[in-house]
């Protein structure tokens, strides 16, 4: 399965890019995170504390145990600080 993965704020800075296409066999967000962590140190660092990471699937906030079925865009970012 091919996914567009986006990173924002310090997750973008740690991973070193704002978006990439990822080929994955993961079925949940948590599975995808495990795959990414295993890739390279910069990913392991970006995802070292999941309490500080939020995820959106196709631009809707989701949980780490959410399934990736039918999802095209996954975004990872820190807690939001708008307003």
């Amino acid at each position, binding site marked *: 399965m091919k996914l567009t993965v986006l990173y924002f704020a310090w997750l973008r800075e740690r991973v070193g890019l704002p978006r990439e296409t990822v080929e994955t066999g993961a079925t949940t967000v948590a599975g995808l995170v495990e795959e990414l962590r295993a890739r390279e140190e910069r990913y392991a660092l970006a995802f070292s504390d999941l309490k500080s990471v939020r995820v959106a699937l196709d631009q809707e906030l989701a949980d780490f145990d959410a399934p990736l079925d039918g999802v095209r865009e996954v975004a990872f970012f820190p*807690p939001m600080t708008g*307003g």
Partner: protein
Amino acid sequence: MDIRVQAEAFDYGAEAGAFAAAATGAGAVVSFAGIVRDRASGGAGGGAGGRLARMEIEHYPGMTEKALAAMAGTARDRWSLNDVLIIHRHGPMVPGEVIMMVATAAPHRGDAFAAAEFLMDYLKSRAPFWKKEVTAEGADWVAAKDADEDALARW
């Protein structure tokens, strides 16, 4: 209902005035402006930090507009409102500049106040914006405050 996400500066007074003038039949207009302060937030502790040189706001194009529209829709379902306006900037800005505004118009003041506070609370913690503060010491992402997350519980 009018929702704008933009890099350009806007004139808060002119927007608030036009919104109030257009709100036919409303008796109450509440507007909120968020302004770049002159001190950094001081990181996770939230204490006063150094003098702020500038702020940079990153956002998630596409999701931002959807999230704001959903919040405004919820507010309109929940309170009796004549109109809602949200303008939020992204990109670089300096102290004193208006970051964003929310305005609500309602027949009665209670609804206008509640909806404006609801929108601000959700916008703080559920709209995909991230603030970075730049001081003489360097740049730091603003940490989300527990108090902002807790504020959502009242709605």
